[in-house]
């Protein structure tokens, strides 16, 4: 049997979700490939709704969702491949971290021994072995976050959906968790992550989906999204010995719309609608005018800039 392309992707086909009169998400069509995909958007933009739709916790009002060709209304197959670390900070009462993970692995159908091994392995991955036998009620917020993460990865899913997984973690734990995500993505897993820490999204994501008011406003690899935003010219800082000369020459190109010499007189900010063409021109200038260039760096080629341009002020959430 040959695999269909859908069997490797998460597919949203014209999906809308309304909560009564309130819009959750509208007309979402996506095809998410393996790797780390971040959902970014302000509060109420539809990130959690998309995640809940993927996992069948809610059903679309219109359209359909499939994950690796599977649908959540067949949970007995679906949730062997999918793990969801939701944002609900609540647990069954009176369980220790180990009991929590072990019990739900038993619900998956694991034998006692396999469930024990799986629980220890998952706790080890999130560095929570020391607190394994403490009641979850006594955990700090960061520990609760980690035990939820451990529970969602304990059955070794191939698709992991993580709603704000870095919330409540201290910087060390954040770095460790991001490293874990990168490692899992390297193993070929799908990771769908919502986060409001934009620089962390930038660091760990292979692609992003920007949401606002229930609509997908942009999707794809971050730099690709940025270069397609023609109404917001790309800003580039060139550190060089003669920024005045460079400023005089960059306007040979129509796509350059602004040039501004840096306050220290050793750099030039330019704004261009065609970064690739600008880099070619820069090469020419360097050769022809013997310009010494120390560095060339895009200033707003990141998720933060994309977010600001597409969604506007305020923090992502």
């Amino acid at each position, binding site marked *: 049997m040959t695999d269909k392309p859908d069997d490797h992707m998460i597919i949203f086909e014209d999906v809308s979700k309304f*909560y009564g009169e309130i819009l959750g998400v509208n007309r979402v069509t996506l095809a998410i490939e393996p790797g780390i995909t971040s959902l970014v958007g302000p509060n109420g933009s539809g990130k959690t709704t998309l995640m*809940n739709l993927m*996992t*069948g*916790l*809610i*059903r679309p009002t219109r359209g359909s969702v499939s994950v690796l060709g599977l649908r959540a*209304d067949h*949970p*007995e*197959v*679906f*949730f*062997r491949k*999918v*793990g*969801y670390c*939701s944002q*609900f900070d*609540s*647990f*069954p*009462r*009176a369980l220790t971290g180990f009991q929590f993970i072990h*019990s*739900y692995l*038993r*619900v*998956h*159908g694991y034998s006692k021994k396999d469930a024990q091994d799986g629980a220890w392995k998952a706790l080890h991955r999130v560095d929570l072995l020391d607190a394994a036998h403490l009641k979850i009620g006594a955990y700090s917020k960061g520990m609760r976050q980690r035990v939820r993460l451990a*529970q*969602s990865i304990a059955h070794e899913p191939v698709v992991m959906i993580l709603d704000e997984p870095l919330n409540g973690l201290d910087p060390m734990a954040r770095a460790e968790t991001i490293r874990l995500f990168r490692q899992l993505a390297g193993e070929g897993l799908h990771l769908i992550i919502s986060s409001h820490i934009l620089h962390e999204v930038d660091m760990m994501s292979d692609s992003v989906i920007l949401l606002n008011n229930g609509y997908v406003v942009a999707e794809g690899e971050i730099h690709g999204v940025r270069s397609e935003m023609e109404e917001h010219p790309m800003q580039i800082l060139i550190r060089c010995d003669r920024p005045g000369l460079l400023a005089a020459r960059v306007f040979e190109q129509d796509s350059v719309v602004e040039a501004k010499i840096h306050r220290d007189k050793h750099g030039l900010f330019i704004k261009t609608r065609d970064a690739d063409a600008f880099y070619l021109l820069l090469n020419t200038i360097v050769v022809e005018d013997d310009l010494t260039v120390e560095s060339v760096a895009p200033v707003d080629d990141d998720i933060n800039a994309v977010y600001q341009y597409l969604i506007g002020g305020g923090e992502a959430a």
Partner: protein
Amino acid sequence: MSSSTEVIAEVRPSRERQWSLWAGQIAAIMRLEVRKNFIGKRAILIYLLAAVPILLMAALSAEISWQQSRNSNIGEVNIIFANLYEGLILRTIVFFGCAWIFMNVFRGEVVDRSLHYYFLSPLRREVLVCGKYLSGLVASMVLFGISTAGSLLFLYIGLGSAGRSYFADGPGKSQAIAYLGITALGCVGYGAAFLVIGLFFRNPIIPALVAYGWESINFLLPPVLKKISVIHYLHSLSPVPVPEGPFAMVAEPTPAYLSIPGLLIVTAVVLALASFQIRRMEIKYGGE
């Protein structure tokens, strides 16, 4: 071997594995749920409810013990127990106890915001209903079974050696088994009803009170309507007939060979309805 035979041979073991998987999943759910039913704040009310008849019978026992000198006999005590059993244990303690246990089976998890852990497991929702129902049944049968047995024990202790020989050599043992069986069937019937009420209603207290009203006026209802209740079938099974009062509409008691399977069939239908509802259920804690 033909290809169709090969296909059957391939499918059969997987079906067996399927059943064994479901059995394992139900056992895992029960381990989690029985623990919740017996431990925690919600269990306190059930312990108190189960203790009420035992304490009351203990007090009555002391009274009977004092009256023995005035010719209190087994026949009188049987009638006292039969009335107290039906009026207090069955209609009140088992009814409200099951309401509390089974309405919280799903509703309690929605309030605690922990139901999604089951919904995110590779678990058919029908299997979840089954596991949760059985765990409620274990808790209710154990607690109200102890309550029934304890009440019997305490009441007949008051009769001294007559009471002891009634259980050792007389019909006391079979009566005790019959009462325990009725309690168990009460848990089966009321449990299924309240589980489904807890799924369909955001505030299940009102439908529970309506159900209590319906069960309470059962003796006034015409025979056809009487049969749409749990208490009618349980009343028919009582080892000591309990009169329903001067205003009762008399109906032919349903024989045990019909009432027990009937109750079980109705329970199965109600659980199927619960399974249908749980398949459509979405997790929206914020709206609860």
